[in-house]
C-alpha cells in the first residue's frame, strides 16, 4: 500500500500504475459503460407511462413518448387528452368546472388529474411514485 516501496526516479516513474490500479481502471470503465447502458438506453423506450381510467372505456395505459391525441367518450360527451413531449393533459372536456383542463400538463410520476363529471382520470406512472421534489 505505501508508496515508499517503489523507487521513483522521474515523474513518469511516480505515475506508474500498479496491477491493482489497472484492475481499478478496468472496473471503472465497466461500471461507467454499465451505468450508461442501464440508465440511458431506456430513454424513450419504456420511459414513463400514464394510466387513463374511464368509466365508459375502461383502463388503458399509454406511453408518454409518442405524441398523440385521444378522444374518450364519457357520460357527458367527449373528453380530449393530449400527449406531447413526455407530458399529458386534458385539452377539451364537456364538463362545467374544467378542473381537469386547469390541472395542466402532467409529467412526474404520481401526478394526477381527473374529470369527475365525465368519469375520466389520468395518473402518470413511473418507477418512483413519491413526491417529485422537496424544496427548502
Amino acid at each position, binding site marked *: 500500500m505505501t*508508496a515508499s516501496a517503489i523507487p521513483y526516479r522521474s515523474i513518469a516513474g511516480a505515475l506508474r500504475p500498479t496491477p491493482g490500479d489497472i484492475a481499478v481502471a478496468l472496473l471503472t470503465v465497466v461500471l461507467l459503460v454499465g451505468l450508461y447502458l442501464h440508465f440511458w438506453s431506456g430513454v424513450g423506450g419504456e420511459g414513463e407511462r400514464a394510466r387513463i381510467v374511464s368509466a365508459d372505456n375502461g383502463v388503458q395505459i399509454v406511453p408518454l413518448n409518442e405524441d398523440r391525441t385521444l378522444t374518450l367518450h364519457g357520460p357527458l360527451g367527449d373528453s380530449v387528452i393530449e400527449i406531447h413531449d413526455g407530458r399529458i393533459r386534458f385539452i377539451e372536456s364537456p364538463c362545467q368546472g374544467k378542473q381537469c383542463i386547469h390541472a395542466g400538463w402532467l409529467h412526474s410520476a404520481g401526478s394526477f388529474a381527473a374529470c369527475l363529471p365525465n368519469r375520466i382520470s389520468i395518473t402518470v406512472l413511473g418507477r418512483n411514485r413519491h413526491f417529485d421534489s422537496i424544496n427548502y
Partner: protein
Amino acid sequence: MNPTEPSEASSPIIVMTTRDDHRIAWLAALAIVIHVAEAAIPSPMPGVKPGLANVITVAVFIEFGWRTAAWVSLLRVLVGSLVIGSFLTPGFALSLTGAAVSVAVLGLIRLWPGPSLSPLGVCMLSSLSHMAGQFSAAYLLFIPHPGMLTLLPVLMTLAAVFGLVSGVITSLLLASLHGRVANSE
C-alpha cells in the same frame, strides 16, 4: 497555571493533546483551506467539483493510515461547511454522506488483501465512492425522481475524471515529499 492544583475551582479544564491530535489538526487545516478555496470555483452542476481536498485525504491515508484520514476528511467537511456557511444545509448533507462513504471505502481498501494500489487507484475509488454516496443521498433524501438517475452516468464519469486528476496530483505530491522525483533532488 499550576497543574498540581486541580481542586481549585477557577482552574480551567486542561485537555491533553497528543502528537496525533496536532497532526490531524494541521492536515485538516490544509484540507479545509483547499475545500474553501474550491467552493469559490463556479460549478456547472450541483455536486460537481474537482475535489482537490481529496488529495489531502488520500495522501494522509497512505502516509498516516486510515484513522487519521477519517478524522481529516470528516473535520474538513464539518469545519469547511462552517466557514462557507453551508452547515446543515442539503449541500452539507451531501458532502457528509460522500465523505463518509469515501472514508468507508478507504477502510475497505486497507483490508483488501489483493494487489496493492498506488495513489492513482486509491484516488479513483475514493472519488467514485464519494460521488456514489453523494448521489444516493441526493436521490433518496431530496429529489427521488426517476429523472435524476439519468444524471448518474454523467456524474460518475466526471468523478472518474477528477479522481484521475487528483490521483496524479497525489502521486506527484507523495513522490516529491519523499524526494523521489528527479527535479526535486
